């Protein structure tokens, strides 16, 4: 769970779909926050660098009546990180929609890291629409047992604009997840990469659709789409589909998708070196998700809530191997007591 005391930067708090000015911390140079009267619409406008902004969505009361509309605008040359935590333990049906929009001007960089961990009663629906002339990096981590639906459209509008989207889904119980990403290359020499990893346990179901559209004026576009999923549960299901639509020549595009299980040869190799079976499984699982954790690991402003991911992985693996995962986390010193 998130410890609010650890947050030192600007903080935006939404409780059951309403912006709470009282719980937020918005006094910060260069951070302009506008909220409408009912608290459903919030605009953040940055004209200078802010190291990190934290955004909390707490979902454990009554479903909100209206969607949240959250807009983040970065002026030219501005950089910031947004750390979004979506959590809640609603014990009755709860439904919420987030409409979020980013405007990233030339020379600016927005790193958005979203951590979602919700109970099985929550249905979280996000609709993103982003206009990028600089660089947008988005990392989304979906844990828990809820129903998550996410649609995201990114338009790369200026030459050399970049978008990097990394997602990790750890599906447990009866959880359902749908991720639809669409990135449109509308200017020359634009770059996007989409990397998605899913670990599906129990009866979890998920789908990922990554669509890259390269317009006729987007000469020199570079596109990478890679989706890999592992199924651990007998009834777990995952549907992955990378799509490319290319309307011009001289582009570099690659895509792929795999669904499988842990590599038996790799397991044997590790066991032949003395690692116990569950340790070997945990180690391979952790290495599997590494590629989509690079953004999070590169950030110095992530809250130390690592255990949530570790616990989720352990649950999917059906073994309390969190101590093994501790050893890997951001190169921390190995804890020996489990070895």
């Amino acid at each position, binding site marked *: 769970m998130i410890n609010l005391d650890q947050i030192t930067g600007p903080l935006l708090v939404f409780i059951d779909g309403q912006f709470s000015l009282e719980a937020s911390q918005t006094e910060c140079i260069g951070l302009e926050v506008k909220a409408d009267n009912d608290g459903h619409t919030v605009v953040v406008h940055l004209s200078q660098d802010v190291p990190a902004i934290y955004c909390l969505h707490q979902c454990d009361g009554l479903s909100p009546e209206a969607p949240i509309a959250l807009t983040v605008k970065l002026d030219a040359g501005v950089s910031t990180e947004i750390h979004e935590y979506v959590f809640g333990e609603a014990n009755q049906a709860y439904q919420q929609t987030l409409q979020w929009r980013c405007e990233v001007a030339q020379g600016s960089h927005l790193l958005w890291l979203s951590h979602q961990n919700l109970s099985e009663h929550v249905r979280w629906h996000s609709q993103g629409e982003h206009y990028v002339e600089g660089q947008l990096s988005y990392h989304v981590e979906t844990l828990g047992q809820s129903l998550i639906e996410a649609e995201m459209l990114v338009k790369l509008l200026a030459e050399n604009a970049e978008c990097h989207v990394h997602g990790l889904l750890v599906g447990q119980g009866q959880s359902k997840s749908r991720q639809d990403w669409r990135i449109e290359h509308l200017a020359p020499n634009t770059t996007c990469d989409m990397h998605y990893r899913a670990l599906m346990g129990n009866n979890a179901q998920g789908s990922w659709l990554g669509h890259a559209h390269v317009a006729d004026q987007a000469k020199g576009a570079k596109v990478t789409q890679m989706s890999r999923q592992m199924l651990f549960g007998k009834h777990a299901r995952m549907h992955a589909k990378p799509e490319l639509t290319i309307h011009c020549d001289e582009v570099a595009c690659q895509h792929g998708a795999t669904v499988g299980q842990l590599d038996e040869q*790799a397991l044997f*190799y590790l066991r*032949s*070196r*003395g690692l*116990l*079976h569950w340790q070997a499984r945990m180690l391979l699982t952790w290495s599997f998700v590494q*590629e989509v954790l690079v953004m999070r690991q590169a950030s110095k402003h992530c809250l130390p809530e690592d255990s949530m991911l570790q616990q989720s992985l352990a649950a999917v693996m059906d073994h309390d191997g969190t101590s093994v995962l501790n050893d890997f986390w951001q190169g921390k010193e190995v804890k020996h007591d489990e070895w």
Partner: protein
Amino acid sequence: MIVIDNLQAEVEGKAILKGVNLTMNPGEVHALMGPNGAGKSTLADVLAGHGDLTVTSGSVRYYDQNLLDLAPEERSHAGVFKAFQYPVALPGVKNAYFLKAAINAHRKAQGQDPLDAFDFIQMTKEAMVRVGMDESFLQRDVNVGFSGGEKKRNEVLQMLLLDPKFAILDETDSGLDIDALRTVAEGVQSLRDSKRTFLVITHYQRLLDTIKPDFVHVLANGKIVKSGGPELALTLEDQGYAWLSDVEGHNDKS
């Protein structure tokens, strides 16, 4: 002492080992040679505990234990080490972490305290010098992007660090240039002592120039068809396996 008695094994219903008998004592180096498809790597995998293989008959006595009853990690803890012919790449797993995890898994199994970071680095650096590996390999993912020779050096590095009682080298010399072969062979040679047993699987005499075996065996069609001293390897190098066609079992197609 390791006693392999009438070992028979199959893969997906196909018999590969058809009655292997072999006794290896501490301090001995046994070279295992033979034509492609004879079952050499299968024997190595059976000894290491690979799950794809089914032992249909026979036994392997490993000191006071039935080796075939042990899980792969238990065999490793007991001192069995197999250097893989095709070491597996582990993307996302740093070599340093992998080595430390393996060492400490062994130490825990032996009731010892885990190695601290300082001792691990010191021990590993020394071993890396012995196999001619640069320290930068510690920060690379295990076998990812390694050349064939680098993978084999990494296998020998693991062997040096895990200090096994019974080392099985499955074509560790394949893919090595002359200098790398010498370095690797010297690394293996440095581990020879009166308590350790080696089973060296190879196609070529050149590895055995440095790792001088006490015994040489020829495995053909799932059985050991000829055993002898180091001179047997020289004969095989010179004449190939054709001259063994009259040896009992070599042409056994049953």
